[in-house]
């Protein structure tokens, strides 16, 4: 080859066979990575039990597909390099036929593309965040006080009855605001299939909210190492129809004094 390149984009670069081959690889790999990346993860997550969780799944799909072209591009070039000229042995191959050190167009394209992706991720994230926050301010919401202590969760329900339970009962399709605190160390209140989580800090009340939209029994797990029996700090959350929920609430023994407060209970 008499001509020696100084940039990747010289002459009719798009007609080079290796460029075409890599372009095909890129498209195939993008589709593959996007599809496998979303499907495997979404299947592992399982069925969502709230709109917040549906949002999480949606976000993971969007981000995976947005990242797939970049990952596919890196993979196409890597595979191309592995499938191309290979030399084994104890001595280096002859030096390459070009000495390309720079390609302003390639660099500009890459940086602009990654900046746009970043902007996209940010906007998508902010919109989703806004949705989650809206539930917190819902005027119709039920307020439940959550108190973590080594190594159980206690739930205080509104009303004069002073209902206190270690299993969380929630009415379906009704927004719930949780006021979370801890009696001892830091815990993290995680409604697994509903996709919400907030730390329980001693001496402070933190808040999160969710609207469960499926009837069933789901998991609550502590997501912050809290000592000896952290692994066993699990409860169930039972989501039921409003009628069932009211019946359950009425059936609970009256402790006589309520510890529930509008702003969240003190431990």
């Amino acid at each position, binding site marked *: 080859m008499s001509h020696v390149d100084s940039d990747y984009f010289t002459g009719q670069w798009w007609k080079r066979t290796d460029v075409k081959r890599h372009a095909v690889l890129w498209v195939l790999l993008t589709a593959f990575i996007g599809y496998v*990346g979303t499907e495997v993860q979404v299947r*592992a997550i399982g069925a969502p039990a709230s709109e917040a*969780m549906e949002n999480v799944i949606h976000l993971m799909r969007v981000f995976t597909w947005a990242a797939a072209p970049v990952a596919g591009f890196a993979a196409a070039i890597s595979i191309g390099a592995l499938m191309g000229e290979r030399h084994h042995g*104890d*001595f280096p191959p002859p030096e390459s036929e070009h*000495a390309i050190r720079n390609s302003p167009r390639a660099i500009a394209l890459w940086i602009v593309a*990654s900046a746009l992706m970043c902007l996209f*991720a940010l906007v998508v994230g902010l919109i*989703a965040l806004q949705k989650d926050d809206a539930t917190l301010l819902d005027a119709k919401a039920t307020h439940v006080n959550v108190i973590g202590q080594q190594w159980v969760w206690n739930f205080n329900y509104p009303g004069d009855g002073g209902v206190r339970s270690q299993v969380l009962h929630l009415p379906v399709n009704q927004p719930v605001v949780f006021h979370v605190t801890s009696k001892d160390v*830091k815990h993290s209140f995680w409604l697994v299939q509903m996709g919400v989580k907030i730390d329980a800090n001693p001496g402070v009340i933190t808040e999160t909210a969710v609207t469960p939209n499926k009837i069933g029994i789901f998991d609550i797990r502590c997501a912050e190492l809290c000592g000896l029996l952290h692994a066993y700090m699990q409860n169930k959350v039972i989501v039921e129809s409003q009628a069932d929920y009211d019946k359950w609430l009425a059936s609970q023994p009256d402790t006589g004094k309520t510890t529930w407060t509008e702003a969240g209970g003190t431990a």
Partner: protein
Amino acid sequence: MTTTMAHTAPTSGSTPKVGIIRHLNVFTAFALGAIFAIVIWRLSLALLPADADGAPLFTREDKITLLSMIGWFVGFMTGIGALVAPFRWVMGKDLSHDENMFLAGKDMGVKRYFRYTTDHKVVGIQYLVITMVIFGMGGILAMLIRANLGTPEGGWIHPQAYNSIVGTHGIIMIVGTIIMVTGPFGNYIMPIMIGARDMAFPRLNALSFWLIVAAAIPLVWGQFIGGISTGWSAYNPLAGQAPLGMNGYIMFICIFALSTMVAGANITTTVVRMRARGMTWNRTPIFIYGVVASVALALPAFPVFFLSQVMSGMDRALGTSFYDTARGGSGWLYENLFWIMGHPEVYVILIPAVAALMEMAPVFTRRPLFSFNVAVMGIAGICGLSVLVWAHHMYMSGWAPLLNAPFMLTTELISIPTGMLFLVLIGTLWRGRLWVTVPALSIFALLWNFMIGGVTGIYLSDVPADAFLHGSMYVTAHFHYTLMGAGLTGAIASLVYWFPKMTGRMLDKKLSWISFWLVQVGFNVAFIGMFFVGLQGQPRRVEAYAAIFNKGNLVTSIGAATIMTGMLILLAAVIGSWRSGVKAPMNPWQAKSLEWTVPYPVPLENFATLPVVTEDVYGYGRKSS
């Protein structure tokens, strides 16, 4: 060049006069450390008053433990000889020429590895060995974790011991990965690569290494007095109620932070002040940028870590309440301090490993590095942004919900400079001539692992998605992909690449090849399994789990066993090749950087005549006319 004057002065023919430092070595250090610890322990037992009624748990015992550990530290550093020169300065004198040559390890043979030796090559080998020891211990702890997670009920390890194993595995692997590139290769190779005779502050170099040895003992000690049952992040108030072993963690971090600060000041000064004539910033190899970025980033990060642990120790031993909400403190204060260190720290680990592979990419593709400037911009961009992202670890802490959006912004911005590093690597692979070796394959492994680590990082950076993923095994798998999949891969590639210069022998090709594949395949099996259970909802740091996580945990355990096999084979290769490997030529990879122009064994002052640099080290390939 004032620091090398002592070295270059003509040696006298008379018998060297070497004072007390002749008698100091690692054995006197351990002996004196133990004596100091025991004496202070007995004294404080006898003299410290009993706690007042109603004092928090352990206060007096915490005081005794911390004082004994400080005693160990002072005794050890005295015994190794770190205080000899400062003591002379106080007396208005300095070490003699003979003593300086003794400290540099001149004609000392293997003994110099067990002394306070200032030669950067000795320090590099010491770092290499201690890194391997740390990874060995961390690996054993990882296998214990996997063994306990073999069945969902948990099992044969007591939860307290299990939590301690998880925490110890975490902190020593973090320390091991922090030093794995800048320690062995930053010390041994970097000064030769920039054409210097030694580091700017050779005694600080020895100090930084021996501080790590001094730090290790309190951590081991802590295991016998209750362990570190808090995970490596040692959040308060959990750390406040943890047993006495927590003091071992506190002392370990304080001493290790000192070591990092000392090493950071030393390496930064060396690179800024001591590059060879003609080595402008444009001609400085990218590996050097990586090392400097790493230690420079550690300079603001580790003092904060130090401070956070001093306050933690005061809360325990002196009854202060920095982190106690009930008495006016805040647990969020600890979290902030911890992650102000914690997030720059992951880039302290990652950047030099990626930079090392960037250094190797042109060598093994026989073409110039693609866009040196973008590589430098990427490293600088990551450094700049990484100090502004810490609170993405605290999205779900409830500390400042209003700040979640700004921290999401800075976190996602970091994908732009990270993408630049990818561009440099794939741009260099494109149209190169691949020389298939373990370092070359490591570039592909890094791209693969770091891509998975990076994309999963996008989900985690997003607040609503993090509300599901935070605190789950997904996070654990994510950071193993970045720190181990990308970081450790780069470090092992560096070991294979620079082994010939550091030992004079080639690392066994077949064994390192087998090890590479076992580790990479095992790694991906292990941590894809871990992603899976994370998505299913398994929290981190649990010693028992629900039955639905069975399969994923089994997969992870199989992968972990494969990694272990691969690492043991690598260890066998290193030991075997070091003792009796094939003798290496001066420049086995036909690379163009300065370290390949010196023979093995590298002379005490590296270069007979200091080199003059006229071009960068990436001049491969046919030049365009």
